[in-house]
């Protein structure tokens, strides 16, 4: 049975951890999760590979752990991409319907799409995603396929996500060093957003914010598809850093205080309420005002959400985001963070939940991206492969080596 299956690895090389999930893709298109590996990340800062060897060692350890837990060899990898180098823009194209009877043809659609995607990028930048927004026919929104509809002008727009070619090449080569091909690169926010929201949420409008250790990825859905995406190079690590500076403690102690006593909204009113650093009454253990910790974390979280809100721009508003804000990622475990988001965005916010029936080990917000990679990657497999098939060698010998 297994010989007919294909084993896809979802890899997220994050600032704090590298996570690998292996999915067994069976012939009917469904995926069984069969292996998981995780390793502390090294050589990655704010989603960028800064030390190739350290990043490779960490990534390969996680890949190996996942392969050993699944007892299979990975055939192909879907790689999550994040980092401050990623940016996006919107480009729209219009074509006059060519047929005399004003019936939209496939040629019209392809022409519009090609033109909308053809905007040149600055030197050294490369496209990661072209996310299509709904077609418009004579200014009215139509379905995903306007073929055979009647109208005079066909409009289509793409949200193009692009990044530094060198940064993306580094991520690719880290994985390629394990001698496995990267089948697709997927924006982290798109991966986690797919897992956190339902199609109905996306149709009504939803904002998903994935707060990692080094970066915060967000995706804003409208009309059922991603409207815009973005990355803020600020994450949970910055909360720790602020605590380190504010309380004059080491990074490890600050991380411990953040996890134990940090809050996204100040709850403590008594300044005299203090907490122990370690709580073991050993030499060096000391007390800190709880309110001070909460004030520092609240300020940084509020600032983070305000930056996101600012980057979302005028397209975002309460009426365009009826489903609300969904928070995920490791830092989303900070108490009262949903209330803080509600306060900033002015719409209901909640902690995102993974679909029911998930393995207990995986059912954590920090695994949303790696789970979403498999889900999103397989959903978009048809289109991606169509493009990939033209560019990537897929011969027998090539697959033989790639799969080894």
């Amino acid at each position, binding site marked *: 049975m297994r010989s007919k299956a294909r084993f896809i690895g979802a890899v997220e090389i994050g600032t704090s951890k590298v996570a690998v999930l292996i999915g067994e893709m069976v012939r009917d298109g469904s995926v069984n999760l069969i292996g998981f590996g995780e390793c502390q990340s090294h050589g990655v800062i704010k989603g960028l590979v800064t030390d190739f060897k350290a990043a*490779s*060692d960490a990534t*390969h350890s996680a*890949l*190996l752990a996942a392969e050993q837990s699944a007892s299979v*060899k990975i055939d192909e990898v879907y790689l999550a991409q994040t980092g401050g180098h990623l940016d996006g823009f919107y480009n729209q*194209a*219009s*074509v*006059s319907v*060519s047929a005399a009877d004003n019936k939209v043809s496939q*040629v*019209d659609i392809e*022409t519009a799409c*090609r*033109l909308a*995607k*053809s*905007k*040149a*990028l600055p030197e050294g*930048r*490369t*496209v*990661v995603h072209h996310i299509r927004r709904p077609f418009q026919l004579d200014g009215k929104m139509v379905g995903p396929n306007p073929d055979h509809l009647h109208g005079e002008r066909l409009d289509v727009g793409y949200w*193009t996500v*692009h*990044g530094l*070619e060198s940064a*993306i*090449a580094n991520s*690719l*080569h880290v994985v*390629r*060093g*394990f*001698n*496995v*091909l*990267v089948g697709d*690169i997927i924006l982290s926010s798109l991966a986690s957003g797919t897992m956190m929201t339902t199609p109905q949420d996306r149709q009504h409008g939803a904002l998903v914010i994935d707060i990692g250790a080094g970066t915060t990825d967000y995706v804003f859905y409208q009309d059922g598809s991603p409207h815009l995406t973005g990355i803020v190079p600020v994450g949970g690590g910055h909360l720790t850093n602020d605590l380190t500076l504010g309380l004059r403690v080491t990074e490890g102690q600050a991380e411990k205080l953040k996890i134990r006593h940090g809050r996204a909204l100040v709850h403590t009113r008594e300044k005299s309420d203090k907490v122990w650093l370690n709580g073991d009454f050993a030499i060096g253990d000391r007390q800190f005002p709880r309110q001070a910790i909460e004030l520092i974390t609240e300020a940084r979280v509020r600032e983070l959400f305000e930056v996101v809100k600012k980057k979302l721009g005028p397209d975002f508003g309460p009426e365009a985001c009826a489903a609300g804000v969904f928070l995920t990622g490791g830092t989303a475990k900070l108490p009262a963070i949903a209330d803080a988001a509600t306060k900033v965005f002015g719409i209901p916010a909640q902690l995102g939940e993974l679909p029911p029936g998930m393995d207990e080990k995986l059912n954590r917000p920090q695994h949303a991206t790696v789970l979403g990679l498999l889900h999103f990657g397989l959903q978009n497999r048809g289109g991606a492969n169509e*493009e*990939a098939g033209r*560019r*990537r060698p897929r011969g027998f*010998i090539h697959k*033989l*080596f790639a*799969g*080894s």
Partner: protein
Amino acid sequence: MSNDTPQSPKARSWRDIPQEIAPRRMSSVGRRRLNMGFVRTAAMVVTVGAMGWGGFEIWQTLQQDPQRLTAGNESRPVETINLQSNGVLDDAWLQETLALAPQTGLMELDLYALRTRLTASGQVRTAVLVREFPATLNVTLEERSPVVRMNAKLDGPDTRTFLVAQDGTVYHGEGYGPQLVRSLPWLGGVRLSREGSGFVPIEGIAQLADLLATARGAMPDRFATWRVVSLERLSADGQILVQSAQVPEIIFGVREDFYSQIARLDLILEETSRRTTVPLHSIDLSVGASQVPVAFNQIAPSFP
């Protein structure tokens, strides 16, 4: 925007970034996976090559000398023949019967023909022949046991002694000691019919064998004097006639168990020898337990 707009250059995609990397830039795990890929490819090439070469060889042989594919002349000659038997047949008989030509290959042996040759003698009930590579033939025999003996002419004018087994098979016994053959009673009152190179099996021998086995067990001394047994009246009257050294005619009935009849015979012989010296002429044990007709002679019987 019109459809006539010239095609814009497509934006560079991440898929244009070459993924190939030099093995020295791979981690040790990656290099191991790459090497395993090479090994697997090499193994596949060797396997495919071997299969192709094998196929070519077979095809070539089929074209040039198809006999080579089926002939067993490449196998080693038979060096050892192991015999396992529950009877008296020995290696010499086996060698003579099999009559294998010198340097006969093990794979050349026609085991079915050899088995037929072994069972043709009649003395062998079943024969199992097994090749044991590289050069051994294992033969396991199950032999028939003789119950009585008889004289008959098979081929030629001379009368020969044959043995009769429990299933009625008449065969020329091989390897039996003279003492054993002499201890067997003669069989009379049957007509032999030819079948192939032998005779049709005789009916009723199973009952006779039962009688003889019972007598041999119950009164071995008196049984030793039994000379001739006859099945002359078996089919008509259900009687078996025995001629012994003391009594010219002892009649056993097949409808009553032989042990009771032999017990009565022993009693009668005992009583008569104690009470009279007049020789007995006949004892009829087939009538039943309530009465046993006994006839006396005035003169002592004479036997061949």
